[in-house]
C-alpha cells in the first residue's frame, strides 16, 4: 500500500513536470508555409535531420510483420523500413509515387523466350542486419516459403498462378531438396535470379514489389515466429516486438543508404503502438503525443470535425484518394438485371449525393464516381455515361426511359446484398434503396457478415442466383497501380469463381476479355491505353454502379518531416519520415 501511495505521488509529480514540455508542440501548426493537402502533391517539411523518436499508433493490429505473410496496405508500406524487396515504388509525392523502381534489383530486368523468362540481377553489397551478404538464393528462398500456406497464410498468391510449378509445397516441407526446390525460379549465381512463367506477364515487376521478395536467410527463418523478428535488410531493424502491442525499431547499422535511395534512416527510434482505440489515436495525434496514424485510413468523425474547423489543424491534414473504389455490382445473370436497360435504369436513378453522404461525405468518404477505375490508377480517364457528375441527384427521367426499354415501365423488384456489420455500407445500401424506390424499383436489403461475404454469399454465384441478389455492394483497391492490377479481378470473365468470386457481376464480355489478353502483349503507353477502354466497355455494359472514389482525412504531426502521400498506398511514405528534434 505504501509503495502504491509513493508511486502515485511520484507519478503525479513527474506528470506535472512533463506537461509543460509536451504541450508546446501539441497543436502548433508547425511551419507557417504548410498548407492543407500539401502532402498530396509535395514533400511537407523536407529535412535530413537525424535523431528523435517517430511514434506511430493504430487502432488495429498487423496481419503479420513477416514480409512473406502480409497483405495489409499499411504493413506493405511499413515493411519498407526493414526490408528491401526486389522492387519498390519511387519515393516521391503525387503520381510519381506510383512508378515501380528497382530496390534490391539493379534494374527492371530483361525478358526472353517471348516474355516467359525474366532475368534480374541484385545488388552485390546489400547485407542483412547480422552482416551476412544477401544473395539471390535468399530471394528465391523468400519466394519459396510463401508457397506454404499452412505457415504463411496471409500474403498474395500470384506465384502459384504465374510460375511453372504451382504445387511446390514450400521449403518447410521440402527440406530434402536443400530448401531450393522451386524449379521455376533459378539462381545461376549469387547475384542473378531467373523466373520462368507459364504465360507472358508484363506486370511481373509489380508482383515482385511485394515485400515477399525481400531476402530471407534460410538459417534465420523461424517459420511462424519469423514475424517476431524478421532479419532486416532495410534502414531499421527490430529492437523489440510484443505481438500485436508494441514494436520498436532502431537503425540497422549494416544498411547502406547508397543501395537503397528510396528509404531514409532519420529517427533514432521508431515506436508503433497497436490496438489503441481510434478516438485515442486521433486525440493523441492532435495533442502531439504521436506522429502518424499507421493505419492510414484517416481520422474518425469527431476528429474530422475538429480538424476541418481549425485552420491550424487543417494545415497539417491531407485528404488524398486512398486508391479504393466503393461500388455496387449489378449482376448480369439475375433477372431482370439480365437486361442491359434494367441495369442502366439503376445507373441513372441512384442519387449519388445521398450515397456519397452515406460513405462519409466528400472529405472523409470520397468523391462521386462515374467510372470503376479510380483517379490514382495509371490509365484512368474520366467520363460520365450515366450523368453521375452532371446530375448527381439522379436522372429520374432517363431512368424511367430505360425502364420502358427493359419492358418494366412500372419498375421491378430485386435484392441488394451488403455487409451489415459495416455502418457506412449499410447507410449506402439504404440510400440506394430509397433513390431506386422513386422510379418504382423495389429493393429488399439483405445483410450478411463481412467475414463470409465473399466466400458464402455475394462471392458465391450459386447463392447469388438462388437468392436473386441482383445488386451486391463491393469495394476494391488495386494490388498495383495500373488498370490490370485494378480491373482484372473485377471484370475479366476468366476470374468468375464458384466461391471467393470478385467478379460478382459475372460479366463475361468477350470485348473486355480480349482487351485483357491483348494487354499482355503490349507495353508502355499502348498498354496503358487499354485500361480506359475496358473501363468504358464495362460501364457501357452497366455491370457496376460506381459510388465514390474513396478519400481519407489524414493528419500528420507538425513535428514530422518529409511527409507526403505515397500514391501506391494512399497514405504517408513511412520509409522516409523524420522528426524535428
Amino acid at each position, binding site marked *: 500500500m505504501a509503495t502504491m501511495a509513493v508511486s502515485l505521488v511520484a507519478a503525479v509529480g513527474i506528470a506535472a513536470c512533463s*506537461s509543460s514540455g509536451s504541450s508546446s508542440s501539441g497543436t502548433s501548426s508547425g511551419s507557417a508555409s504548410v498548407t492543407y493537402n500539401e502532402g498530396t502533391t509535395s514533400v511537407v517539411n523536407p529535412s535530413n535531420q537525424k535523431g528523435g523518436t517517430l511514434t506511430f499508433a493504430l487502432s488495429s493490429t498487423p496481419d503479420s510483420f513477416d514480409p512473406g505473410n502480409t497483405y495489409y496496405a499499411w504493413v506493405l508500406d511499413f515493411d519498407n523500413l526493414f526490408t528491401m524487396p526486389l522492387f519498390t515504388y519511387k519515393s516521391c509525392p503525387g503520381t510519381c509515387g506510383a512508378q515501380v523502381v528497382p530496390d534490391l534489383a539493379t534494374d527492371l530486368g530483361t525478358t526472353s523466350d517471348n516474355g516467359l523468362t525474366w532475368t534480374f540481377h541484385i545488388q552485390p553489397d546489400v547485407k542483412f542486419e547480422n552482416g551476412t551478404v544477401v544473395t539471390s538464393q535468399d530471394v528465391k528462398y523468400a519466394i519459396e516459403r510463401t508457397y506454404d500456406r499452412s*505457415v504463411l497464410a496471409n500474403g498474395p498468391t500470384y506465384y502459384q498462378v504465374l510460375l511453372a510449378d504451382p504445387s511446390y509445397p514450400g521449403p*518447410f516441407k521440402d527440406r530434402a531438396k536443400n530448401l531450393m526446390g522451386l524449379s521455376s525460379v533459378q539462381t545461376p549465381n549469387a547475384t542473378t535470379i531467373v523466373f520462368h512463367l507459364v504465360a507472358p506477364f508484363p506486370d511481373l515487376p509489380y508482383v515482385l514489389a511485394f515485400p515477399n521478395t525481400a531476402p530471407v536467410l534460410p538459417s534465420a527463418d523461424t517459420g511462424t515466429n519469423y514475424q517476431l523478428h524478421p532479419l532486416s535488410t532495410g534502414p531499421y531493424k527490430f529492437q523489440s516486438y510484443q*505481438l*500485436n502491442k508494441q514494436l520498436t525499431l532502431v537503425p540497422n547499422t549494416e544498411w547502406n543508404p547508397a543501395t537503397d535511395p528510396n528509404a531514409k534512416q532519420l529517427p533514432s527510434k521508431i515506436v508503433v503502438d497497436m490496438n489503441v482505440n481510434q478516438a485515442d489515436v486521433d486525440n493523441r495525434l492532435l495533442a502531439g503525443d504521436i506522429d502518424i496514424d499507421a493505419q492510414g485510413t484517416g481520422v474518425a468523425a469527431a476528429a474530422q470535425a475538429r480538424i476541418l474547423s481549425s485552420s491550424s489543424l487543417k494545415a497539417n491534414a491531407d485528404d488524398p484518394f486512398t486508391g479504393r473504389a466503393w461500388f455496387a455490382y449489378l449482376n448480369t445473370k439475375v433477372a431482370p438485371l439480365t437486361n442491359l436497360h434494367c441495369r442502366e435504369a439503376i445507373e441513372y436513378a441512384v442519387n449519388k449525393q445521398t450515397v456519397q453522404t452515406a460513405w462519409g461525405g466528400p472529405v472523409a468518404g470520397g468523391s462521386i464516381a462515374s467510372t470503376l477505375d479510380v483517379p490514382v490508377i495509371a490509365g484512368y480517364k474520366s467520363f460520365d455515361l450515366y450523368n453521375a457528375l452532371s446530375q448527381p441527384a439522379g436522372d429520374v427521367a432517363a431512368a424511367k426511359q430505360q425502364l420502358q426499354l427493359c419492358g418494366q415501365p412500372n419498375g421491378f423488384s430485386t435484392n441488394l446484398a451488403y455487409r451489415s456489420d459495416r455502418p457506412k455500407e449499410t447507410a449506402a445500401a439504404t440510400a440506394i434503396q430509397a433513390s431506386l424506390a422513386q422510379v418504382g424499383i423495389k429493393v429488399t436489403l439483405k445483410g450478411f457478415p463481412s467475414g463470409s461475404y465473399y466466400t458464402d454469399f455475394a462471392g458465391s454465384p450459386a447463392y447469388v442466383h438462388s437468392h436473386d441478389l441482383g445488386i451486391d455492394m463491393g469495394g476494391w483497391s488495386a494490388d498495383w497501380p495500373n488498370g490490370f492490377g485494378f480491373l482484372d479481378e473485377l471484370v475479366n470473365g476468366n476470374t468468375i469463381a464458384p466461391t471467393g468470386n470478385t467478379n460478382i457481376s459475372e460479366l463475361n464480355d468477350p470485348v473486355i476479355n480480349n482487351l485483357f489478353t491483348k494487354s499482355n502483349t503490349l507495353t508502355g503507353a499502348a498498354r496503358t491505353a487499354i485500361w480506359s477502354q475496358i473501363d468504358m466497355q464495362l460501364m457501357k455494359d452497366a455491370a457496376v454502379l460506381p459510388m465514390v472514389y474513396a478519400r481519407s482525412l489524414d493528419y500528420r504531426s507538425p513535428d514530422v518531416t518529409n511527409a507526403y502521400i505515397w500514391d501506391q498506398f494512399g497514405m504517408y511514405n513511412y520509409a522516409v519520415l523524420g522528426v524535428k528534434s
Partner: protein
Amino acid sequence: MIFFIIRRLILTVFLLLLVSLITFAIFFLVPRLAGQTPYELAAQYVGRNPIPSEIKAVEIKLGLDAPLYLQYGRYVKGIVLGVHYSDGTDVSYCPFPCFGYSFRNEQPVWPQLISDAPVTLSLAIGAAVLWVTGGVAIGVLSALRRGSFFDRFSMGVALAGVSLPVFFTGLIALELFSYKWSVFPNVHYVGITTNPLLWARNLVLPWVTLAFLYAALYARLTRAGMLETMGEDYIRTARAKGLPERQVVIKHGLRAALTPIVTIFGLDLGLLLGGAILTETTFSLPGLGQFTILAIQNQDLPEILGVVMIASFFIVIANMIVDILYAVVDPRVRF
C-alpha cells in the same frame, strides 16, 4: 480448516473443468449441431484465397475431423502436458500449459495471456486499493456524519459514480487531463519493471476512473452497513464501557460492517482480473480485456477459450479466498 481448504480446492478444479467443458461445447458442439462442418470451421483459420487442400490440412492439423470428445480430451491434455498440432508434414508445438494455439497469430495462446495479465493485474490491483480505501473511508465518514453536507455531497457523488459508465468518465478524464491540460500526456502502458514511475504515471487516470465507479458503490454499501451496525446494542455497550470513539468505530463498528464488503470485493476483483474490458479499451491498455475484444473481432476461438478459462480461474480463486476468509471469521461456514 485444512480439510475445508482441500475440499474447496478440489471443488475449484471441478468447477474449472466444468467451465472448460461448457465453453468448449458452445464453440465446437453448438456450431456443429447448427450444421457447420469441420471443413467450414477450418476455413476460418486459413488465409486469403485458400485452396481446398490447405483447408483440409488445417482441419487435420487442428483435429477438427475427430469426434468432439476426443477434441476436448486433447484440449485438456494440452493444458497439462502440451500438444503437437500436425497435418502429417507440418508440426506446430504448443508447450505446457497449452490453452490452445491461435492459428490467426500462429502463436500458442498461453504466452499471450501471460504477457497481457500484468497489465490487467496492474490496473485492477491499483484501482482496488483506491476504491477500497476511498470508498470505505467515505462510507464511514458519511455514516458518522449522517445528514451533514459532507454526507449528502459524498452520497450524491457516489450516485454519479455508480451511474456514469467507465467509457464516459474515462473519456472525460482523458480529454481534460491528457489531451487538453497534458497533466498525464500520452497515456500508454509501460511495464513496472521497465520504469516504475512511468508505470504509475500512465495508470493514474485508469486507476482513478475505475476506482470512481467502484468506490461509489463501496461508499454506499459501507455507509449502509455502518449505520446499521452503529445502532446495535453492543456499540452502545462499548461506548458505555468508556472506550474511545475511534476504537468503537474502527474495532467494533467497521469490522462488522466490512463483512459484506469483503464478499463483494472478492467477486469484483476476480471479475476485473479476467479483463477490465471497458477501462482497457478506453485507455488503450493492452491487457486481458483488450485481448478478449481482439479475439472476438478475429473470431479466434482458441484465444476466446483461453481468456474464458483464465477469467474463470480468477473468479473461482477469488471466491475461494473469500470463502476461506469467511471461514476464518465465522467457523459455522466450514460445515
